[in-house]
Each structure stands twice: as structure tokens, then as C-alpha cells.
């Protein structure tokens, strides 16, 4: 027998992880993504800085206008918006390569014989791909670095939350890509399947906006909808759980498909059970409540004194809206009032009144159109307002309480006029050249290790 030192499972995982990272760095898929990211993110950032600066010129003269200028909306979200595009359209190719290429080249038949469980092998590959994605964060973070160095403001918690959201979204895309690669025979087929799913979420978002109730509920589970919560500075537990489950669940399904020695029938059964469990998990995650508002301007919250009262309204508040969902007033009501109430009022029930299927224009002849009714403790109040300032007193009246506003200082806003030219030079020139140089250097750095040099 061959004398050897049996490596531990941890050591094997570390070797595989290093190998996967080296492979990612050896292939042009990852470097190509970084190369495209530079001008893409750069354009998003430079335009955001320009527009933010234009708005700030006026806002600097007015305290009220300044309050509307938040770096989260004005700078961070547009910059990461470009990164989101790259994660959706380019990152799947990087992820698929880690598994699809092994299937195509036959390496998978060797890997599956290694003394590592299939699930651990797949998880290690996913981890390496996510580390590669994280390195790509250097591009948008360099934009935010420029913003800070130039005197701009960023709220740490809301920015970190935004990055967390994009990280969870990347995990989801990666999981889907691995699942597609496990199901299909070639990397090209896997790419088509992955893009069909990720772009399908866009279609779902669009359709759920005006579609029937079941489609709206399905749309709530979409990763792009979940990401919007993070973009509003909200850590929403159901959305965090949903994204994490979709990513980890898809990865688990991939390892189920790849497990060697299974008949097609067994694979189908395993896949069916696994998919069912994942779907159930997603549904359960969607009914979990809990969220934390990390936004600097507390846009997802009411005044703390109002919130304390609303949390006590446990007799079952029912809100009925005689509005079409497409109506801008309904959308505004949902964002400014309903989203916040859902976070606070226990057992809140929202009913959409029958306004026909003709939309806001067709329903205009109905006198009740536009009314919102509030039922609580056997009392009812009607209002046509969609402003929290007018609605909160109604709710206080229903709860028979008087609220004294807290002395929380108002959000002051952060107007800033910053020259984006240096960032433009970095993103359109310096960074792409640096990526090309590093990519070239890595692909040519093949120095033999010491013990093989004298062979």
C-alpha cells in the first residue's frame, strides 16, 4: 500500500476551494465580467453624481429641499443598480463555468470519486464563486470610496444593508446557475436556462404589477422584488430568508441531481421532494414577519411615539381601499402608509374593494372610488388621503389615544456637489487597464513549485 497522510475533510475543502478560485482567476469569464463592470458601474455612478449635484445646487439653498436628498437613493442604489445588471446577466456565466465545464470535460467523474460528499463539493464550489463575486465588489465600492473622499456622505448601516441585499441576490443567481448546470449537459444550455429563470423574474415583476392576486403573490417571491426592500434601507426578515433559501435550496437541488449512482427515477423523486420542500420553505418565509429599518431618513418608519401606539392596536385593524392597484394614489398609499403599518400593527387586514376591472379611469364615475376605510374596534372612519400625516391621527382616534410626537430631529439630507471627472477617468480608463494587466499577469504566472523544479 502507498504510505500517505490522510487529509482531513477540512483540508480537502480548503484544497478544492483554492483550486476553484485559481480556475476562476484563470478563465476570462471572471476577468471579462470585471472588465465590463468597470464602465457599467462607472456610468451609473458618474451619472448619479452629476444628477445628484444638479439637484443639490438648489437644495443647498433650502433646508426643506435638502431633506429630499438621500445618498442611498441618489448615489448608492444607482451605482449598485449597474452591478445588479452584471450579477443578473454576466455572473451566471462565471458560476456555470465552475460546474458546467467539469461536466463537459469529464472532470466531474473524477471529482465525484474524491473522498468528499457531493453536497460539500458543490457547496465549496459555490463558496469560491461567491468569493469571486465579492472581489467584484471592488468596482462599486471604489465608486463609493470616491464619493466619501470627495466629501459625500453615506449612511454605514443602509449601505451595508444594500450590499447584503446584493450579496443574497448573487447567492440566488449562483444557486440557480449551479442547478441549471447540474440539470443540463453543456455550459451553453445551462446559461440559457439560468438567463431564462433570472429574466423570467423580470417578466414576473412586470406581470404581477397588474395581474391577478395569485400572480401578485408570486411576484412577492421574486428576488428582484426582494432586492427592492434592501434598496429602501429595510432588512426584511421574510425577504432575507426567501433569497437565502432560494440560493441555498437551488444549490442543494444541484447536489441532489449530481449525486452519482442514482437511477433517473430516483433522481426525479429526490428532485420532486427537494423542490417541494424548497417551495414550502419559500411560502413559509413569506409569512414570517419582522423587519428593521436601517435607512438614515427612517423612510420605512413613523415617529417612534406613533409606532408605540400602532404596536398596541391588537383588536384587528382592517383597511379597505376602493382604488385600482394601478392607480398612483394606491401605490403611494402602499409605500407611505401600508408598508409601514404592516411592520407595526398586529394582524393588520388589507382589503381591496371592488372597483371593477376598468382601472382608475373606468372607475372614475363611482362615487366611492378613492375612499379608504379604517375599521377598528367596531368603529369605522373613511378618508381619501394617502398621506401619513393625515391618516395617523385617524388611527389614533380609532385607538382612542393621544400621541405626543417625539423630539426626534428631522432628517437633514445630504446635498453635495461633487466633480465626477476623476471617477470617470478611473472607471473608463484606469480600472479597465488594471483589470487587463492583472488578468494577463495571472494567466502567465505559472512558476513551478520548488519540489518540481529539478525534475
Amino acid at each position, binding site marked *: *500500500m*502507498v*504510505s*500517505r*497522510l*490522510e*487529509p482531513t475533510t477540512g*483540508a*480537502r475543502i480548503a*484544497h*478544492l476551494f483554492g*483550486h476553484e478560485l*485559481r*480556475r476562476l482567476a*484563470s*478563465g476570462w469569464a471572471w476577468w471579462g465580467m470585471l472588465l465590463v463592470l468597470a464602465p457599467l458601474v462607472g456610468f451609473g455612478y458618474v451619472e448619479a453624481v452629476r444628477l445628484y449635484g444638479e439637484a443639490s445646487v438648489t437644495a443647498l439653498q433650502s433646508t426643506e429641499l435638502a431633506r429630499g436628498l438621500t445618498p442611498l437613493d441618489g448615489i448608492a442604489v444607482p451605482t449598485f443598480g449597474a452591478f445588479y445588471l452584471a450579477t443578473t446577466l454576466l455572473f451566471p456565466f462565471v458560476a456555470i463555468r465552475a460546474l458546467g465545464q*467539469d461536466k463537459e*470535460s*469529464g*472532470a466531474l*467523474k*473524477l471529482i*465525484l*470519486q*474524491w*473522498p*468528499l460528499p457531493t453536497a460539500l463539493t458543490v457547496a465549496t464550489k459555490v463558496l469560491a464563486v461567491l468569493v469571486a463575486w465579492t472581489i467584484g465588489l471592488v468596482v462599486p465600492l471604489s465608486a463609493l470610496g470616491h464619493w466619501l473622499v470627495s466629501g459625500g456622505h453615506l449612511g454605514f448601516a443602509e449601505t451595508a444593508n444594500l450590499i447584503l441585499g446584493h450579496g443574497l441576490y448573487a447567492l440566488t443567481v449562483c444557486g440557480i446557475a449551479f442547478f441549471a448546470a447540474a440539470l443540463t449537459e453543456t455550459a451553453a444550455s445551462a446559461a440559457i436556462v439560468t438567463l431564462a429563470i433570472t429574466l423570467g423574474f423580470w417578466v414576473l415583476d412586470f406581470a404581477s404589477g397588474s395581474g391577478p392576486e395569485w400572480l401578485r403573490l408570486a411576484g412577492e417571491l421574486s428576488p428582484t422584488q426582494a432586492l427592492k426592500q434592501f434598496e429602501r434601507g429595510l432588512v426584511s426578515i421574510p425577504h432575507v430568508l426567501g433569497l437565502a433559501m432560494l440560493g441555498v435550496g437551488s444549490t442543494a437541488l444541484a447536489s441532489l441531481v449530481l449525486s*452519482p*449512482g*442514482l*437511477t433517473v427515477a*430516483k433522481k426525479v423523486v429526490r428532485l420532486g421532494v427537494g423542490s417541494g420542500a424548497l417551495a414550502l420553505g419559500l411560502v413559509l418565509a413569506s409569512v414570517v414577519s419582522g423587519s428593521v429599518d436601517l435607512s438614515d431618513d427612517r423612510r420605512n418608519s413613523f415617529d417612534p411615539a406613533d409606532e408605540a401606539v400602532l404596536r398596541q392596536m391588537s383588536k384587528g385593524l382592517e383597511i379597505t381601499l376602493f382604488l385600482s392597484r394601478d392607480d398612483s394614489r394606491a401605490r403611494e398609499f402602499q409605500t407611505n402608509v401600508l408598508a409601514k403599518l404592516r411592520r407595526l400593527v398586529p394582524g393588520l387586514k388589507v382589503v381591496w374593494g371592488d372597483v371593477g376591472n376598468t382601472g382608475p379611469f373606468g372607475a372614475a364615475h363611482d362615487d366611492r372610488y378613492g375612499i379608504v376605510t379604517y375599521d377598528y374596534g367596531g368603529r369605522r372612519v373613511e378618508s381619501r388621503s394617502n398621506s401619513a400625516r393625515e391618516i395617523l391621527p385617524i388611527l389614533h382616534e380609532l385607538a382612542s389615544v393621544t400621541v405626543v410626537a417625539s423630539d426626534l430631529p428631522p432628517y437633514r439630507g445630504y446635498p453635495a456637489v461633487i466633480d465626477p471627472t476623476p471617477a470617470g477617468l478611473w472607471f473608463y480608463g484606469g480600472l479597465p487597464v488594471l483589470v487587463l494587466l492583472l488578468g494577463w499577469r495571472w494567466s502567465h504566472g*505559472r512558476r*513551478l*513549485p520548488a*519540489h*518540481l523544479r529539478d*525534475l
Partner: protein
Amino acid sequence: MIGLEVVGLGRCHGDTRVLADVDFDLRPGEIVGIIGPNGAGKTTLMECLVGLQPARTGVVRLDGIPIDPGARSAAMFYLPDGIMPWSDQPVWRVTGLFRDMHGSGRDREVTVLRRLELAPVLSKRVGELSKGYRRRLLLALALLTPQPILILDEPFDGFDLRQTLHVMELLREVAAERALLLSIHQLKDAERICDRLLLLDAGRRLGFGTLADLATHAGATKLDLEEVFLGLTA
């Protein structure tokens, strides 16, 4: 001296039986060759044996103890034919990965690379290797694994005569420590290196034993594997 026993290994693709209750055994230190025409089920047999493909029937025992498909990779390593793993990586990184995953040690890696004369191509990417060097690299990977049984699909494919003889000599040395199961297309090669032969056709075992056993079974006039092959597969 028990080794590996395979009893009634069978596999179906839908209604088609691709492997029909194949029996054979492999003793420690022995080289058994699987021969047969194209589509005989040689690769299917090897992949079922190691647990990569599901077998419908059959028992595999190691030293008399049945082993489940999921546990077989601890006892045997299978090297498929026609693969080009990690083509974008230099050779030394690929051998280093196998060394690390199996804990083979640097000395063993150096010995294997030296014996397979891979030094000139260590810095080349796997995808840049000639067919012969690629085959040598794959053999090196197999030799860096610790399992007591090595299963190699077409180990001499891509080698010229001199290289084939050199690799045969090396495999004979390996067989002193491990048992080898080789799928061999070229009958002359099989005749040169194998102690016993398993002849398959259309998934069925047509014969198993030494060349002399097979010749008797085929009613051949001389100890010639080609004549045996033609006689039994007619």
C-alpha cells in the same frame, strides 16, 4: 487471497439490457483486462462497478464483504477514457490537486511524474498537451490515488508501441501493490499485460479466465487472443 468479487452485475437503459448479470473477480496484485467489441458494455461495467452509474442487479464484495455503491470509491478509483479535465490549468497544478486531495505526498508525486516522463510539460496547460502526454497525465492522476483497486478505461490509447510497453512495465509494478482492472481495445496489448481476461459482448459475459482458459472455451487451436475473440464473438 480474496480481493474483489462481482456477482450478477446488471444494468438496463429503459427496456434495453446493457449489462446482463456479469460475474468476475479480481485478486490482489492481479491485472484483469476487459475486452469486447464496441458497445459491449465495458465502460458501463466499470462505471457501475465504481458506483458512478446505477446497477439494477448484482453484488460487489471486497474481501468477502459486500460494499454499497456509495462506499466503493473508497476501495477503487476509476479513470474514464476521453476526458480532458481542467484544461485551463497547468499540469503541475492538476497533479498537485490530486496529491493534496488524496494526501499522496510530494515524494510520491515526484516519483509518478518522473516515471511518466511528464517533466517537459509540467508548466503547460492541460488543454495544450498532445494526446500522449494527456494520457500520461491522466495515468499520473490515477497513480496518485490511494485506492487498492485501479480501474482504467483504455489506458494505452494514444501511446505508440514504445510508450505502451513503458506504461505496461509501470502498471505491472503498480500491480504489485494494487489490483488493476483495465478496459483494452487492442487485443495484442491485452494479451501482453493481462493475467486474466473478461470477454464481453452486448453486455453479456462470453468468457472469463486466463488466455488458456478462454482458448479452451472457444475451441481455439492456439493461444492467440484474436482467434479466441473471433471464436467467442462470432
